[in-house]
Structure formats: structure tokens, C-alpha cells
């Protein structure tokens, strides 16, 4: 009797321990994945030819470069996570970003100072987010379809703004792009990082706090978990969803401006595939597909993983492997996400 009791107890303990291990894996795996990828690339590239003269994967120059190119996705993926936690999706972020970049570059080219151009682009971005919100929340069109339609719309408008015969808004014989357009995303402010990077950090910090500490974060999770229950318990789902789409639209502007400033031109195709990068980052970060739970901070780690993989691969294998690599990372993220989230639901 006593022995049996002890056995049961030990079984109980074992189950508890395995659950604790699993919970810990779920909590920390993303940091291991990032560390692993960084280690692989820094070892694999030791003997390689120097990339663009920047040297080792972990040399200060290449780390700075990596973080600089990661600015748009870092700015955007936090807001995207909030939206996905609430169970919605925005596939138009990429083309919204391109359109913002084009509009911003066009205004700078025509002599606007930095701040007014930024403010006008922000208003445009908020309008685009509001349009998505209108289609999804008010007119109740399925999010995927509605945002695919706006994807096409924004991309089309961006292509229309760029004059015939040019591939992007850029300086020409008559008009020259002012050199200070680069200041925002390239000029060294502190530790080799430009303004855009610190803006991205601030955005991340704000969104982490919003997700963890404010009512908006709680409401988003409640909506994603069970929309009807959230509605019944008095959350104005329509308003909240609308607000989240507007937030995504707002940060798409910051990302677009950072990209335009980095490239010193407005490319109508520069944001293509951004929605996929965001989805990968969000899934790697362990946010559930259907919403309800997730973490902004982990999405940022997921975004860094993508940037490491793409920039790291670029130096090891030819560029035409990029698409295959990204697709594989996406499917890998899906499997990983499935394993971890499902385990939790079962337990």
C-alpha cells in the first residue's frame, strides 16, 4: 500500500517535471534557435571570403549592418504580432510599406523637409490601416481576402505614382534627392546605429508594454481566444480590431520611411514579401495561428532569426537559394509552432 502510494507519487512528480520541462522549452527555445543560427554562421564563415569586406559574421561591422537592415521588420512585426494575437491578419503590410516609401520619397524629392513629409505619410498610413479595418471589421469581409485586395490596391497605386520608364522614385537630371534623406536610416548616432534603429527599439519597448501591461493587449488576447466570449463580456471587438489595423498601418509608415531613407529612393516593390517575413517571425515567436496568445518580444527574436538566416545565407550560397530558404524556414516555423502550441492545448 505504502509502496504503491509512493509509486503513484513518483509518477505524478515525473509528469509534473516533464510538463515543467516542456513549458521551459516553450519559453526559451527561440533564444536557443537564434544562438544556434548565429553560432553556425559564425563558424561556417570563418574560412570564407570576406563579404563586402565586412569580415566575420560577428564582427562589429556586420552586426551593425545586420541590425540596420533589420530595422523595417523590427518596426513592423511587433504591431503585426498584436494583430495576429487578436486572430486577424494583414497581408497588405508589404505593399502598404512600399506605398509609404514611394510617397515619402516623392515628397522629399519635391523639397519637403523631413518632419512634414513624415507627418503626411503617417496620416496616409493611418488611412490605409483604417481602410483595412473598415473592410474587415465593419463590412465583415474575411481578413485574408480583404487584405489581399488592399495589397493589390496599394501596390497598384505605388506603381502608378512612379513615373513611366522609372523603376523607383529617385533623383534625376532635373531634380536631385537631397543627401540628408540618408540621415534617418544610415547616419551614425550612437554605437554605429542610426536614428531609425533607436525608433525601432522604442517601438518594440512600447509594444511589449502595451501587450503585457495594458488593456489593449489583454483585449487582443481575449478576442483571439474567443471572439464571441469577448463580445459578450463587453469588449467592443469592432473598435478594438479597427484600432489594431490602424496601429499596423501606422508602423508600416515608420518601416517604409526607414526603407526609403536607407535606400535613398522610393521603390514600389521594396516591401514585397514583407507580410511573409512578418508571418514567419510571428510563428517562430510562438504566437498561435488562430490568436489568443503570443509575445511581441519573442516575435522580435524571430525577426532577428530571419535576418540572420537571409544575410548569413547570402554569403555562403548563391542568391537564387533565398526563396527556397525562406519557404523552408516558414514551414519549419509552422511545424515548430504546431508542436509547441498543440502540446500546450492538450496538457
Amino acid at each position, binding site marked *: 500500500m505504502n509502496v504503491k502510494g509512493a509509486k503513484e507519487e513518483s509518477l505524478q512528480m515525473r509528469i509534473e517535471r516533464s510538463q515543467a520541462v516542456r513549458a521551459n522549452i516553450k519559453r526559451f527555445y527561440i533564444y536557443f534557435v537564434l544562438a544556434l543560427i548565429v553560432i553556425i554562421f559564425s563558424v561556417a564563415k570563418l574560412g570564407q571570403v570576406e563579404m563586402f569586406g565586412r569580415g566575420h559574421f560577428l564582427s562589429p561591422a556586420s552586426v551593425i549592418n545586420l541590425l540596420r537592415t533589420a530595422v523595417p521588420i523590427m518596426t513592423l512585426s511587433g504591431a503585426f504580432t498584436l494583430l495576429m494575437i487578436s486572430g486577424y491578419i494583414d*497581408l497588405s503590410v508589404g505593399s502598404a510599406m512600399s506605398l509609404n516609401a514611394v510617397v515619402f520619397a516623392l515628397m522629399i524629392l519635391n523639397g519637403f523637409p523631413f518632419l512634414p513629409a513624415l507627418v503626411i505619410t503617417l496620416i496616409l498610413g493611418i488611412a490605409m490601416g483604417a481602410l483595412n479595418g473598415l473592410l474587415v471589421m465593419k463590412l465583415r469581409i474575411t481578413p485574408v481576402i480583404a487584405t*489581399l485586395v488592399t495589397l493589390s490596391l496599394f501596390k497598384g497605386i505605388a506603381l502608378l505614382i512612379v513615373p513611366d520608364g522609372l523603376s523607383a522614385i529617385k533623383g534625376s537630371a532635373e531634380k536631385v534627392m537631397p543627401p540628408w534623406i540618408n540621415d534617418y536610416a544610415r547616419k551614425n548616432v550612437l554605437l554605429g546605429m542610426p536614428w531609425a534603429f533607436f525608433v525601432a527599439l522604442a517601438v518594440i519597448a512600447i509594444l511589449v508594454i502595451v501587450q503585457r501591461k495594458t488593456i489593449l493587449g489583454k483585449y487582443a488576447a481575449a478576442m483571439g481566444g474567443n471572439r464571441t466570449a469577448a463580445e459578450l463580456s463587453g469588449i467592443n471587438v469592432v473598435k478594438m480590431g479597427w484600432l489594431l489595423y490602424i496601429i499596423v498601418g501606422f508602423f508600416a509608415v515608420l518601416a517604409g520611411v526607414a526603407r526609403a531613407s536607407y535606400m535613398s529612393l522610393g521603390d514600389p516593390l521594396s516591401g514585397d514579401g514583407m507580410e511573409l517575413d512578418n*508571418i514567419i517571425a510571428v510563428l517562430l515567436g510562438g504566437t498561435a495561428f488562430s490568436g489568443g496568445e503570443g509575445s511581441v518580444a519573442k516575435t522580435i527574436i524571430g525577426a532577428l532569426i530571419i535576418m540572420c538566416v537571409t544575410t548569413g545565407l547570402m554569403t555562403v550560397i548563391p542568391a537564387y537559394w533565398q*526563396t527556397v530558404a525562406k519557404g523552408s524556414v516558414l514551414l519549419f516555423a509552422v511545424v515548430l509552432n504546431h508542436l509547441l502550441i498543440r502540446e500546450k492545448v492538450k496538457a
Partner: protein
Amino acid sequence: MNVETKQVRKNTVGGRMSNESFLTLFMIGVLVVLFGIACAIVPNFFLPQNMLNLITNNWFIIILGIGVTFLLITGNFDMSVGGVIALTGVLSVYFCQGANVSQNALANGLGLPYGLAIALALLCAMGIGAINAFFIARLKVPSIIVTLGTMMLARGIAQVITRGAQRNTSLPDVFGVVGNIAIQGTSIKISVVIMVVLVSAAFIFERMTVSGRRTYLIGANAEAARLSGITVGRHLTFLYLISALLAGITGILLASEFKAGVSSRAMGYEFDALVVSLLGGVSIAGGFGSVLGMFVGAVILSVVTTSATGLLLSPDWQFTLKGIVTFIAILAQRFALDRRKG
């Protein structure tokens, strides 16, 4: 009593047109109006050849639309079709190219006979469909995420095989036959005939087979379908394999037409296939839509884009136009159905 029987008759399908037929007729009406406007304002629109082109120039979108429509009726997306077209096109070329004929790596293939090459390429296309089905039917991952992933995977493999460009040398003559042969005395290509055959087959499948009706049940209520004994997973797998196979056929026909395997072929076709399904009245909310409607939708899109070209708008207008047209179509269809109900 009288009121009650009236109510009953109103709810039965027999006495009244089904919502799908109503919507298809509605979209045909829209098509006729748009066509009339186009004839009035677009120069050279009202020509026999142009009207024929409205259908024959869109065969690839219509073939893709069949698979996408069925999946959309079950409430799932397939965004991988464009990638599958590129992949099968490139693979069929790669399998067909002569082995060790040139110093240039892009000119060397496997040297298989054409029939075998096509069969293998179609098999690879269905492999992508199988990946889709595994993730969506087995792991229950949202279809939009999975198929966007396999879209990248398929196009990525095509890019790797062609090194980001295309393969078009050292092909046997037989390779260019299927895509370019036309019916005697007309300009109608064999691809268009294949499209018509496939649409007819899909129509019969949709209306007259048990399997076809199951598609609607799954879309209307997957849980109820499962409880009434339909193996939902197997049916979804079947539909994803069919969709990939149709995309594969399209890929092979396009590769044959241009006698080249281009890795950037069919960029954005997945969106066009989705747009024509939506224009035809397919509802993502489930269990609603028809292949015939999709066909009408494809002609509507064709009228709009041809008119835009005829009015000398820049090609950049295409994206904006497609977005606006789809948006209006979704709202108009919902309005028409609501009015009918109320």
C-alpha cells in the same frame, strides 16, 4: 395553413432557383452590362477576334480557378498555384533537355523522353499539393500560411534549377508542340480546348457526383460533415492534389508554348485565380459558389483588363483595377443576396 405551405415551398430548392444559380445569373447580368459599356467606349472592342480573345487569352487563369474555387468552397486557400506553375514548367524543361550536350550548365538536363518528363513534372506538382494537404488536413494549420510557404518553396526550387533565370536551350522539337498547336483553320489553341474540357468535367463533378456535393457540406460546416461520416481530411487532400495537378498541367502547357522554363513565370497568378473565383460569387464563409460562376468571373476580369489596355492605360493600372473590381464585386454580391433573402 396556406401561409405555412408557402413558407415550406419557399424553403425547398425545387420550386425556386438556388442561391448559386441566382448569383451566377446576377454576375452574367453584370458581365453583359460591362460588355455593353466596353463596346461603347473602348475603340475596337466590338470585333469578333477580340471577343474570342476574351476567353481564349485567359485559359490558364480559368484552369487554375477550378482548383482554387473548389478549395475556396471548402473554406481553404491555395496560394501555391503560381509557384507550382513555375516549378512544373522548369522541371519539364530540365527533364527534357539533352544530357551533357554543352559546357553551359543551364543547357544540360536529364535527357528523358517528353512523355516521361511530363509525368515526372506532374508528380512533383502533386508533391507540393501533398505537402499542402499534410499541413492543412493533418496538422490543421491555416491554409493561407501553409500555401504561402509552399508557394515560396515551389518557386524557390524553380529558381535554384534555373539559377534565377531560365532554361530554354537544347530542347527536343516535340517539346513545343502541345502548347502551340491550334485547331485547323482557327486560332484556338489546344490549351483552350483542354480548358473547356476541364471546366466541363469540373461542372459535372460539382453538380452530379457525391464527392462534389461533399465539398459544399464541408464548407458549410466541417464539424457537421465530419459527424455525418465524411472523411474531411481525405476530401481536402484530394482537392489539394487536384488543384496542384491543374496548376501542373497549366505549367507544362505554358512551358511548351514559350519553349522555355522560366522561374518567374506565373508571378501573381494565385491572386488572379482567387479574384476570378470571388468575382464568380464563391464565398470564403463556406459552402457557396460554382465553377460556372468562376468562368463568368474570369470573363468579367478579362473584359475589365482588356478595356483598360484598349483605353491605353499603363499596365501599372492592372493591380489597382483588380483590387477595386474585386472589392465592388464582393459588396455587390452580398447586397444582392441580402435583398433576395429579405
